[in-house]
Every structure is written in structure tokens, then in C-alpha cells.
């Protein structure tokens, strides 16, 4: 086997495979390392592949080529308590047209397909290959060593696409150990359910799909839940903030099992047969969680670069990852042309990301991280929303208050005015 490459990419997830594909297409010798038996076998996410201009650029016929489950037709935000829920649903024909706004996918299937496309362009995919350490020469990174194997793999450039824990970024000294506060833990249960039942239950036809985000599904913990419809299965799970999980002493699978007993959710997943259970960490540090993105001979992309954010409504990572992979590939091509792999050359990677939506969106919602650590957002406000709507709808022979007075009355029953204002300011800074 060849031992020297132009570029070694550690990790055949969406970021790594996009980078490999573009580099191979440009005629470079690329090694794409995957620690699993096949790409995607170690990968897990909630379930939604966002619309990505990168995919559209590379695969003009993406919708017909890629192994997709359903496109998202309906989006619901549900705030809930153990008994009640308030749902806001957007259902629009505009989501039925190509380019669709997003697709549910199975990562072991989708990631494998994407890596195959890189191989078709000439990338060398090496599976069963866990990168263990970086090889350095005069402070420049020149390759990786592989766990349990003799002989190093060498390259002019290493791209770390090794996921949220990125041991490569850590070994390169680009970031310190990840603090608890910058992490969420996602757990997910895949439930098999016949296609006709899913269509009927969620009000879908053909390959339309539904996407639910749940607030208040994690009990007292900071976090949220999700449900996505696949062709004949449901992806249901939750993400909890790791600091909050540690403080609570609760177990993730029990939190999930309790959430499955919430009456609305119980009806949605009824009859589902467990097919697979998975877990993964999620970068939640926002813009402040992004490590140094390059050094001599190396760039960091995707989750490894902390490129992932949520503002409570949008939850994006995979599209940011693929854009970063594409951007890093563009920079690598220029670096190879110039035969310059120094940090100063690679600094253009950060600059290009800065002007793309990736860093811009993460900056725009930089303050959302603080908002998402507000305990009352998870413990109090979902119940408050349910109470207010219940009061508005309830008919009990008592004279009614006008809406604002009713809202104020209900709100101050649960939260004092000072906290309410403080939270309002945090929400304004994070979201508005």
C-alpha cells in the first residue's frame, strides 16, 4: 500500500468525505481514514441532513442519487410538560420543491455512500484504521500513526475530520481538553414502524417527512428532544447538556424512557419496534468552542472544529461540516499548488470560513449558548406556555381577562418579575 499522500484525511464522515472527494477530483493523492469497518458505522446524529449548497454543487442530481429517507415537509416545535404540550407546526408546499430544505437519512448508509463517491473520484479509503498519533517534523505535522499497526502514513497535509472528540486537534495542540460545558450528549432510539402507519399518523404522503423538536422533554435537565420520520422507522431521542446531566445524577436512557411515556410522544411512537440505540456527543460550545483551525501541515474540519450550533430553533452541524470540508479542500489545493503547507498559508481556511455562513451564523447566534443554559427555559417556560393556552381556551363560566393581563398573571405565578426580565434579555440577546 502507498504510504505517502498529498493529503491524509482522518475520519470519513460527511466533512472528511466531501474534502476527500474534492481533493481527489483535483487530481491529488488522498487517503481517507475510517476507524470503523465502513464509513458511517461509528456515526450518529438526530436524523436530519440539511439542504447544502455543497452537495448541490457536487451532485447536480443529488435527490435522485443519494440514499435518502424522506424530505422534510413539516416542521413542528413542541413545548411540553409531562401532561401537556403546545405545538407550532409549519407545513408548506414550498418545502416540497427541489431543492428540499432537508432530508432524513441513516448515517451508516448515507456516510458510506458519500465516501464511495470520493473513492469513485480516486480517493483511497482505508477502513479499520484508527489514527492514534500525529507525526511531526520540525513542528510541522507530516502524517499519522495508526493504532495497532506498524508503519506511519505520511502526507504534506493532514485534515482532522475525526469528530467531536478530535484527538487529532488535541494532539496538535490546537485545543485543550474539552470542557463539560461545551458538550451535549445525544441518545437516540430507532423505532421500526410500517410506512403506511407513519404516513397516516403524521399526515404525510409519498416521501414527505416530519421533523419535531421538543422543549421540556428532558425533565429538569437542560436539553431538548427530537423526532424524525424515516421511510419505515422513527428516529426519536434527546440531547442533554453534559454539565446538567452530571449535576442531576440521572441516566440518559432513563430520561429517554420517561420522555417516551409523555402522552403526546407515546401516541407518536406507539407500536414502534426498537431497531437500534445509539449515542454521541454534540459540540455545544458555540463560537467560543471553536479551536484553532489550522497549524503547520494541518487543518481541522466538521465536529472536530466545533462547527455546530443551536439557538433552540435551528440545530445545524452536518451542513456546516460539509462546507468546512469543501473549504479546507479548496485551501489544500492551493497549498499543494504553492508547495506551501505552513500555518500562514493555511490561515486562508479560517478567513474563508469567516465569510461563509458557517462562522457568520455561529457568530449571529453566539449569545444563544447562554440562553440555552437558562434552567427556566427547560423547567418553567414550557409549562407556562401550556398553562397560558389552557387558560385562554378553558371555558368555565368565569369572566375572562384580556390576553396580556392573563399572560402576566400566569407568568408571575411561576417566575418573579426580576427573573422574567433577566430571562427576556437573555432570549433577546440570543435569538432576537
Amino acid at each position, binding site marked *: 500500500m502507498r504510504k505517502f499522500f498529498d493529503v491524509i484525511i482522518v475520519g470519513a464522515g460527511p466533512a472528511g468525505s466531501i474534502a476527500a472527494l474534492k481533493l481527489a477530483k483535483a487530481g491529488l493523492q488522498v487517503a481517507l481514514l475510517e*476507524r*470503523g*469497518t465502513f464509513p*458511517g*458505522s*461509528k*456515526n*450518529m446524529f438526530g436524523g436530519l441532513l440539511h439542504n447544502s449548497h455543497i452537495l448541490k454543487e457536487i451532485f447536480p442530481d443529488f435527490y435522485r442519487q443519494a440514499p435518502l429517507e424522506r424530505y422534510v415537509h413539516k416542521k413542528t416545535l413542541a413545548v411540553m410538560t409531562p401532561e401537556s404540550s403546545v405545538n407550532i407546526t409549519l407545513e408548506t408546499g414550498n418545502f416540497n420543491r427541489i431543492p428540499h430544505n432537508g432530508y432524513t437519512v*441513516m*448515517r*451508516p*448508509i448515507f456516510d458510506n455512500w458519500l465516501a464511495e463517491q470520493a473513492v469513485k473520484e480516486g480517493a483511497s479509503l482505508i*477502513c*479499520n*484504521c*484508527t489514527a*492514534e498519533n500525529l507525526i511531526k517534523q520540525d513542528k510541522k505535522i507530516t502524517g499519522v500513526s*495508526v*493504532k*495497532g*499497526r506498524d508503519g506511519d502514513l505520511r502526507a504534506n497535509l493532514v485534515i482532522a475530520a475525526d469528530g*467531536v*472528540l478530535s*484527538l487529532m486537534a488535541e494532539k496538535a495542540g490546537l485545543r485543550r*481538553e*474539552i470542557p*463539560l460545558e461545551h*458538550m451535549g*450528549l445525544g*441518545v*437516540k*432510539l*430507532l423505532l421500526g414502524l410500517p410506512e403506511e402507519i407513519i404516513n397516516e399518523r403524521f399526515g404525510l404522503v409519498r416521501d414527505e417527512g416530519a421533523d419535531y423538536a421538543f422543549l421540556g422533554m428532558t425533565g429538569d435537565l437542560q436539553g431538548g428532544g427530537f423526532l424524525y420520520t424515516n421511510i419505515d*422507522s422513527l*428516529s426519536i431521542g434527546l440531547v442533554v447538556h*453534559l454539565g446538567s*446531566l*452530571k449535576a442531576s*445524577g*440521572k*441516566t*440518559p*436512557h432513563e430520561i*429517554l*424512557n420517561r420522555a*417516551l411515556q409523555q402522552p403526546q410522544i407515546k401516541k407518536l411512537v406507539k407500536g414502534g419496534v*426498537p*431497531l*437500534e*440505540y*445509539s*449515542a*454521541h*456527543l454534540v459540540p455545544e460550545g458555540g463560537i467560543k468552542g471553536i479551536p484553532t483551525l489550522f497549524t503547520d501541515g494541518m487543518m481541522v474540519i466538521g465536529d472536530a472544529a466545533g462547527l455546530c450550533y443551536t439557538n433552540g430553533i435551528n440545530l445545524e452541524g452536518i451542513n456546516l461540516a460539509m462546507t468546512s470540508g469543501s473549504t479546507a479542500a479548496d485551501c489544500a489545493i492551493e497549498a499543494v499548488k504553492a508547495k506551501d503547507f505552513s500555518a500562514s498559508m493555511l490561515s486562508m481556511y479560517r478567513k474563508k470560513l469567516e465569510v461563509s455562513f458557517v462562522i457568520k451564523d455561529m457568530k449571529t447566534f453566539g449569545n444563544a449558548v447562554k440562553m440555552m443554559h437558562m434552567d427556566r427555559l427547560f423547567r418553567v417556560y414550557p409549562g407556562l406556555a401550556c398553562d397560558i393556552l389552557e387558560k385562554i381556551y378553558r371555558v368555565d363560566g368565569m369572566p375572562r381577562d384580556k390576553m396580556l393581563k392573563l399572560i402576566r398573571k400566569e407568568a408571575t405565578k411561576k417566575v418573579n418579575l426580576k427573573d422574567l426580565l433577566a430571562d427576556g434579555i437573555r432570549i433577546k440577546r440570543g435569538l432576537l
Partner: protein
Amino acid sequence: MINIENLSQITHFYCDQQSHIILDKEICRSCSHHACVSACPAKCYTLDAETGRLDVVYENCLECGTCNVICDKKAVNWSYPRGGFGVSYRLT
């Protein structure tokens, strides 16, 4: 419902002979919170209430790294399994 005790019946693993999680059990013995026990999504960690001994079953590890991040005593020496071993998702 997920019955975590039967995890390996729905999630597939290629078990290695050697563990990718090494604990410093002396440090674990003196730990006051054992957060790893509750936080691990695969329930890999168990604490024997009588002996105070902490044990880990690496065979069911989902490789999320939660234990490594959550341990504030540096008692978990955690790395990815050798290539080809460990959890292997089929769908998810």
C-alpha cells in the same frame, strides 16, 4: 422503550480482546460522585456498593466519550478501539 440491559440485542458490536477504557481504580475508589456510572448512555460502569469497586464493561461501549469528558479526576484512560472493533451501527 430501551432496555439498556439488552443493548447488544439491537446495537451491533465487534468486541476486541483488549479494552479501550482503562481505569485508575485507586483514583476511582476515592471519587465522591462516580458521575460516569449514571452518565454513561450504555450503562457500562457499575459501582459495587459494598466494596466501593468501580468496574467498566467496554464491550457495550458506544464510544461517545462521555465518561472521559465527565471524569474530573483523570481516572479514565480512554481511546478509540483498534480499527474495525467496537460499536458498528447499521441504521441509526
